[in-house]
């Protein structure tokens, strides 16, 4: 949802860091998106082509690393990947679980040409 303002935010961050590093061109953007953050890769890719036009990031490759959801049971301490229907612990069925990975959403790095 809201992939357009999100994509604009990605561009703003990339351009700011590009400028700081005296980039002539930004050739790639590396994003990290957790499975639990509800953003759709295809929509970001689609908007990227439009918002990056006429900037030094035009044509930059969008590289998206997806992080799978990981949970940990706070009772028996095992770590597991939740199924889409059930977040309870698969070992002891406890519902006292916490998210340890999967809600990331950040710009990790950019590749620049000087």
């Amino acid at each position, binding site marked *: *949802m*809201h992939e357009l303002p*999100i994509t604009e*935010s*990605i561009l*703003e*961050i*990339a351009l700011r*860091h*590009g400028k700081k*590093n005296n*980039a002539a061109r930004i*050739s790639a953007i590396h*994003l990290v998106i957790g499975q*639990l953050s*509800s953003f759709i890769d295809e929509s970001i890719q689609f908007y990227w082509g439009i918002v990056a036009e006429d900037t030094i990031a035009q044509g930059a490759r969008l590289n998206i690393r997806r992080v799978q959801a990981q949970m940990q049971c*706070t009772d028996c301490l095992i770590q597991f990947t939740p199924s889409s229907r059930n*977040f*309870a612990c698969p070992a002891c069925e406890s*519902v*006292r*679980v*916490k*998210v340890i990975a999967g809600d990331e*959403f*950040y*710009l*990790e*790095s*950019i*590749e*620049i*040409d*000087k």
Partner: protein
Amino acid sequence: MTKRVPVVEKILSANDRVAEENRAVLDRHNIFSLNFMASPGAGKTSLIERTIQGLKAHVDPLRLAVIDGDIATSFDADRAAAAGAAAVQVNTGGECHLDAIMVRNALPQFDLSSVDLLIVENVGNLVCPASFSLGTHRSVLIASIPEGDDKPYKYPGMYRGVDVLVINKIDLLPYVPFRMDFFQQGVEILNQGLLTFPLSCRTGEGIQPWLEWIISQVGEHRR
């Protein structure tokens, strides 16, 4: 030559930066603030009316301000104003959530030096408001019995991100199939130990503990 530059910056940071500014403005004026989120019809405005009335009657009456976010109309702000709060309507013009900038633009419309508690009523929606912090001190989710007991499972993002849960319309429990234990199990998975107030805005049952919580929070914030 191509060079890789580390960035590691949270996306959405533009909104988050404005949210931090909002928080600073509120703190400077000693205002405690709540972000009310819920589906349409869960009772956000009814709870605001009850809260205004309850806090007016308190021995040390709190001065309330309400920012009402809606796609169109000013029905909700009118209700809050009629109940006795300073109210500003923000029409989002189709946007399904409030963002930090809308709140920033609304704040100067109040006399902030005479406000103790700000309630922001978000647009009725269980998805998008969870992603946009506004700068408020606590976020409150208002669930309601007729919505059904599966909502924590269907909207985990919303249930995970809130500080307080209100379960409204408990007077309808005898008439609606709602498995409270199933609902609360879903909540517990997503947000362990979440502070919960079951209440009914219609009958007034359960309103008192909710008011006491707000009064204690405002008091702690002032210190």
